C-alpha cells in the first residue's frame, strides 16, 4: 500500500507541477499585457 502511495505521488506529482506551471504562465502572460 505504501509503495502504491509513493508511486501515486511520483506519478501524479508530475501532472500537478505541470498544471501549476501552465497556470502561472497564463497569469504572467496577462500581467505582461495588462495595458
Amino acid at each position, binding site marked *: 500500500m505504501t*509503495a*502504491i502511495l*509513493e*508511486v*501515486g505521488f*511520483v*506519478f501524479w506529482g*508530475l*501532472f500537478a*507541477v*505541470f498544471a501549476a*506551471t*501552465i497556470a502561472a*504562465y*497564463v497569469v*504572467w*502572460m496577462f500581467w*505582461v*499585457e495588462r495595458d
Partner: protein
Amino acid sequence: MSIQVGLFVLYFVIIFAIGWYCLRLTRDETDYWIAGGKLGWLLGGATMGATHASAGTFVGTIGVIYTSGWSFAWIVLSIPAAYWFMAAVLAPRFTRAKKLTLPAFMEERYYSTGVRRLAAVIILVATVVYVQAQVIAGGIIGNIVFGVPREWAMVGFTVVLIAYTAIGGMLAVVYTDFIQLIVMIVGVLAATPLAIRQVGGIEPLFATVTAVKPETFTWESFPPALLFTMGIAFTLGTIATPEKLVRLYAMKDMRAIRRGVLLAMIVATGLNLLIFVIALASIVLFPALPSGDLAMPMVARAVLPPVLGSVLLAAIAAAIMSTVDSLMLVAGSALAHDVYGTLRPEATPRRRLWIGRMGILVVGTVPVVLILSGVGEGELVQFIVLLFTALMASSFFVPVVVGVYWMRATKEGAVAAMVSGLTVCFAWEAWGDPGIDPVLPGLIASATLFWIVSLITPAPPLSATAPFSSDGAASAASANHP
C-alpha cells in the same frame, strides 16, 4: 491494400499536396524561410509544438522509460521552463532585428560574416546527427506499416519529407505541422485510455509495473547527476536550437509569440505526459522487447484496434516528419542563405532559393547514407536526440541569449564560445564521464571563453549592439529581413 497502408498513402498525398499548394503562395525568400514573418499564435504555436514533438517523444522517450523507469519523466518539466524563458527573456530582444536565419542574427549581433558562416556550419553538422535519429525511427514505423525492410522504409520516408519541404518551404512546413499536430493529439488521446484499459486501470497499472520492474518508480535507475544535467540539456536545447529560434522570427509580434509559446508548451508537455503513461502500459504488456524503441509501435499494433493503431502509427510518423522538415529547412537556409549567400553576394534571390532546395536535398540524404553505412545504428533514438540538443545548447545558448543582454560581447568571444562549446561537448561525449551529460562541460567552456575572450578583445561597434541594447527598442521599428 490494407486499411493501414491506405491511410498512410492518403496521409502522404495530403502532405505532398500542401507542399505543392504552398509553392504557389511563396513569392520571395522571406515567405520561403520564415513564412513571411506574419504567423499568428495558432499556426506559430502549432508549428513550434509539432517541431518539438519528434521521434524523441514518440519513440525515444517511451523507449527510455520502458528501459530505465519513471525518473526520466521528470525531465519533461524542462519544456515549460524553457518556453517560458524563451518568451519572457530571449524573444523580446532577439526579435528586435528580424532575420531569416539564426546565423544571420549572429552576423548582425557580432558584426562578422565569418561568425555567420561558422554558425551555419555547426547547424549543418548537428542537423545531420539529429535527422539521423528521426530517420532510424522512420525506418521502424515504415517497416511495421508497409512490411518493407527498415532500410527501404528509411529511404522512402526521406523522399516524402524532402519532396514537400524543398517544394513548399516554411509555409508548407507550417501548414503540414498544423495537420501533423492534430494527428499526434488524436493518436495519443485515443491510445492512452485504451492502453490503460488493457492493463485493467490506473491502480493495477502501478501495481503491475512495480511488480514487473520494481525499479521503475524509484530515483535509482539514473544517476542523479546525469538526470539533472540531461534536464539542463533539454532546457537549454529547447531555447537555443535554430529551428525553434527561427519560429520566433516567423511569428508576427510578441503577443503572438507569448500565446504561441503557451500553445507549444501545453501541447509538447501534454503529449509527453500521456506518452509516459503508454510507456508504463507497455512495460506490463510487452515486458521483454529487444529495444525500448519498439514499445510504441508494439502498442499501436497489438493493443489498439486496426484503425486507431494506424492513427497512432501515423501520429509517430507525423512527429518525425514535423521535426525533420523544420530541421531540413534550417539546414537548407544555413547552406543557401548563410554560406552560399555570403560567398556569392551577387547571386539572385531566385538562385539562392534553388541552392536552398539543393541544401535540403543534401541534408536529407546524408543521414540516410550514414545509417546505411552503419554509423549511429543501434543507438536508442532518445540518446541521439540528447546529443543534438547538447551540441546546440553548448554552441548557441551563450552567444545568443547572453549576447542580446551583454553588450560587451565581441565577435571573437562568440567564435570562442561556439567552438569551445561544440568541441568540449563532442569530446565529453566520446571520452568523458558518462554519468554527466556533455552539455554541462560544454556550456561551462562556452561561457568561460565567451566572457574572457570578449573582455580582452576590442569592444563591439555601437551599430552592432544598438538593436539589442536596453535603450535600443526604437530600432525595433526598423527591423528588416536581409
